[in-house]
């Protein structure tokens, strides 16, 4: 990932955008943080939040006209948070010392003419930056219009106390100065720059251009006037009404412009979000209890501490996190996409020897697309992770353990044991080509064969069959080379068969073809069935058989036609549908997608466990891996194909148990064998000696070794090697044997004992660390 790509990714995720209250505030007070501190009862910390941004928190905290509240997300659900009233109690309660240290002085001299709120704000900002500041004020005190506000709202001693900061900072204040053209010209001569407080100077002629409100005309973005080095701001009283917070902003803007002028940098650059601005942050208020605003018992005095805490409690601490709320993977790593994009970027730049802590993370995404669908800004973790996987391969930092097992399974499907392409028996042409998918053949071989016979019966022009894997595992692993090979093999077969219409029974294959080989123009088995007619025997008229929770696979997220079609078929079968919470556009993957199950089996199990708990009803899947993964977690689940072409009449497909990886391979071989049988092509397959070993395994052993991704074939190889080469260890107690073999990258260990006609497998485990040898 390049730096500019990272910036693009980061910009897509809006979680770190400021909340509405902050964006609406002309000064960008972090009201969300303020409320968080109040919620915790941290009054000092809350005060610090105000003090960080407000020039005179004691004043502004009491009189702010709080435009933040108009945009508060709480507004429609109970009324906006009383941020203004909470700021007030916050500054009232504060009894700590205000520390302001005079900075080393810069040489430049700045004059501020007029000591109103805008003027004193500008003066303070510049003093804090170390400039020499002189303030010229007509009266005998600073603060201007502030002194005209009601005492109850803003006590006089607060104004004096807050403005005493100028003494601490040793500002040069000139009281009783006549503010006129003479002073103005004199100050222009003597100072490097000056700021005019338009509130104090309203009605005084300085020979400067005025705007329609009679105020000195300025560029609103920077506060510059027509005269170079002369800036101005303030005067909200004379255009629509006194706004303390806008008045403050209008003092702050010219102060910043002067600082930039002195540093000789552009006045306008990067100031788009100064003052009130919009925010891209999305915050859902779904399910939020519409609590009304807490009304203070004494409206004049404002909130008591207890009332303030109750009011602060209503703040929902706006954030997006929409994708994180729905996706266990995103939740588990305790961040959000913007942070993850940065981590992946950094992960690719780790110097030799340091840890790539995001390797597993990058390979744990199921690439299901849920986040992209939910995200208000379409952030796709799938695209981010898949690209990062391809980069990991290029950088040679991809651990083989992440995908090897899945890629071997794919190689099995695309090799001699399963791969096949034939016209239907007795035909030499195919208008159609059935592509049942490797995983459906792996879990429901008999049903696949029945569905193939059904298609031959219903469709004219010949229905060929193509047994192959679509290449999805390679795509997910970032293995472009293997993926293209798989697709090319499919394309070649399709060409040889005369470009027939491909029918697939797997939603992932359908997606892969549609996106990466659209020329194949694939259709789903279920859509064909809706047109050609559902087998009569499967339909029950008039009665409802059962209710099932339909598990929409993630691959059908954007395929409403398919999802509706499934429901129509279920209707015809007399099966009632329960709509699960994560269905339709927002299903979460079952853990097979993206090879999550391979790189992060624990997460994959947790995802399945969470999904199985969504309903007590049986589930019905129309993706083979969904069926198998839920079954593996102990959920009663069936595949649609089992209801249409039942293996046993009146059986209970949801009772069928989990399928091991070994059985999946065996089942695929059986499909090929049966198809060849129908064609009269059955050959005696070459059977290796080790394949002839008869194995017996207790169910719990079978389950354990499958979870360890050990195939029966691996076990047979180990035992065969041990028995023929005599390389094994014998238990001194039970008489069982322990042997090991490293056929490729994994060392397999098997504990077994001979029985009547074969071997009983007692245990098996494996590791990737290679045994190099004994130290001599």
């Amino acid at each position, binding site marked *: 990932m390049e730096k500019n790509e990272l910036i693009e990714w980061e910009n897509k995720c809006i979680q770190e955008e400021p909340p509405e209250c902050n964006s609406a505030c002309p000064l960008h007070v972090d009201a969300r943080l303020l409320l968080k501190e109040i919620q915790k009862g941290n009054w000092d910390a809350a005060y610090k939040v105000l003090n960080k941004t407000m020039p005179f928190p004691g004043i502004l905290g009491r009189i702010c006209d709080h435009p933040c509240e108009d945009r508060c997300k709480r507004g429609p659900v109970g009324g906006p948070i009383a941020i203004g009233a909470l700021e007030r109690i916050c500054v009232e309660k504060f009894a700590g010392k205000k520390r302001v240290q005079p900075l080393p002085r810069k040489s430049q001299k700045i004059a501020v003419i007029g000591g109103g709120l805008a003027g004193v704000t500008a003066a303070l900002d510049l003093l804090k930056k170390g400039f020499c500041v002189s303030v010229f004020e007509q009266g005998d005190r600073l603060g201007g219009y502030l002194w005209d506000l009601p005492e109850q709202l803003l006590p006089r001693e607060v104004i004096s106390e807050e403005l005493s900061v100028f003494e601490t900072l040793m500002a040069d204040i000139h009281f009783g100065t006549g503010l006129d053209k003479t002073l103005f010209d004199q100050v222009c001569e003597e100072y490097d720059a000056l700021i005019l407080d338009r509130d104090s100077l309203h009605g005084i002629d300085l020979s400067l251009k005025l705007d329609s409100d009679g105020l000195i005309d300025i560029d609103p973005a920077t506060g510059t006037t027509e005269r170079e080095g002369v800036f101005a701001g303030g005067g909200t009283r004379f255009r629509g009404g006194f706004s303390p917070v806008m008045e403050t902003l209008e003092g702050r803007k010219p102060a910043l412009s002067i600082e930039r002028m002195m540093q000789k940098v552009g006045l306008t650059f990067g100031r788009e979000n100064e003052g009130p601005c919009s925010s891209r942050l999305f915050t859902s208020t779904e399910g939020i209890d519409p609590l009304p605003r807490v009304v203070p018992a004494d409206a004049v005095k404002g909130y008591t501490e207890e009332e303030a805490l109750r009011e602060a409690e209503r703040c929902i601490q706006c954030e997006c996190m929409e994708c994180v709320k729905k996706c266990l993977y995103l939740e588990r790593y305790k961040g959000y996409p913007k942070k993850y994009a940065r981590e992946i970027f950094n992960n690719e730049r780790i110097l030799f*020897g340091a*840890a*790539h*802590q995001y*390797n*597993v993370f990058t390979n744990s995404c199921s690439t299901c697309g849920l986040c992209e669908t939910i995200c208000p800004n379409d952030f796709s973790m799938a695209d981010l992770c898949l690209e990062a996987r391809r980069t990991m391969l290029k950088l040679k*930092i991809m*651990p083989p*353990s*992440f995908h090897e097992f899945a890629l071997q399974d794919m190689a099995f499907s695309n090799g001699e044991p399963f791969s096949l392409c034939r016209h239907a028996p007795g035909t030499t042409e195919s208008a159609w080509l059935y592509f049942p998918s490797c995983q459906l053949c792996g879990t429901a071989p008999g049903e696949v064969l029945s569905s193939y016979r059904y298609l031959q019966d219903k469709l004219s022009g010949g229905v060929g069959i193509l047994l192959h894997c679509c290449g999805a595992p390679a795509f997910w692993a970032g293995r472009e080379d293997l993926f293209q090979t798989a697709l090319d093999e499919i394309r070649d077969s399709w060409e040889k068969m005369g470009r027939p219409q491909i029918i697939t029974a797997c939603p992932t294959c359908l997606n892969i073809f549609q996106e990466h080989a659209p020329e194949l123009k694939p259709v789903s088995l279920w859509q064909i069935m809706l047109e050609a007619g559902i087998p009569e025997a499967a339909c029950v008229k008039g009665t409802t058989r059962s209710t099932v929770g339909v598990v929409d696979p993630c691959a059908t997220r954007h395929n409403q036609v398919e999802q509706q079609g499934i429901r129509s078929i279920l209707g015809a079968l007399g099966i009632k549908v329960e709509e699960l919470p994560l269905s339709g556009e927002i299903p979460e993957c079952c853990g097979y997608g993206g090879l999550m199950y391979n790189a992060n089996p624990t997460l994959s199990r947790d995802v399945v466990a969470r999904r199985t708990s969504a309903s007590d009803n049986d589930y019905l899947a129309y993706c083979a891996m969904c069926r198998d993964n839920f079954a593996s977690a102990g959920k009663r689940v069936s595949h649609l194909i089992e209801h249409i072409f039942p293996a046993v009449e009146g059986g209970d497909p949801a009772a069928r148990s989990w399928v091991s990886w070994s059985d999946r391979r065996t089942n695929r071989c059986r499909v090929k064998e049966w198809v060849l049988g129908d064609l009269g092509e059955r050959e005696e397959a070459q059977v290796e000696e080790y394949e002839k070993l008869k194995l017996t395994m207790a169910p719990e052993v079978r389950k354990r070794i499958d979870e360890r991704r050990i195939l029966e074939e691996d076990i047979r190889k180990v035992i065969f090697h041990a028995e023929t080469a*005599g*390389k*094994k*260890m*014998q*238990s*001194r*107690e039970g008489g069982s*044997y*322990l042997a*090991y073999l490293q056929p490729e990258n994994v*060392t397999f*260990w098997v504990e077994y004992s001979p029985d009547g006609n074969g071997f009983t497998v007692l*245990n098996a*485990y*494996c*590791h*990737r*660390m*290679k*045994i*190099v*040898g*004994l*130290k001599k």
Partner: protein
Amino acid sequence: MNFSQEAAAWSCASCGGNLELVKVHFSYMKGNFEVDLPACAACGLVLVPESLALGRMAEAERILEDK
């Protein structure tokens, strides 16, 4: 970790000898290790107990995968 118990529980079926603790070399990705494990020095057979394979060895594999 001491695997003398495991060493005592098994014998080499090939030569009938006892297993003794011997330094065994392992490698994975860019890492190399030595562990004292039960082995038949005569036949070269090594015993990696299940607890080691699924415990510390798996942990070391994960750490190396992050390197």
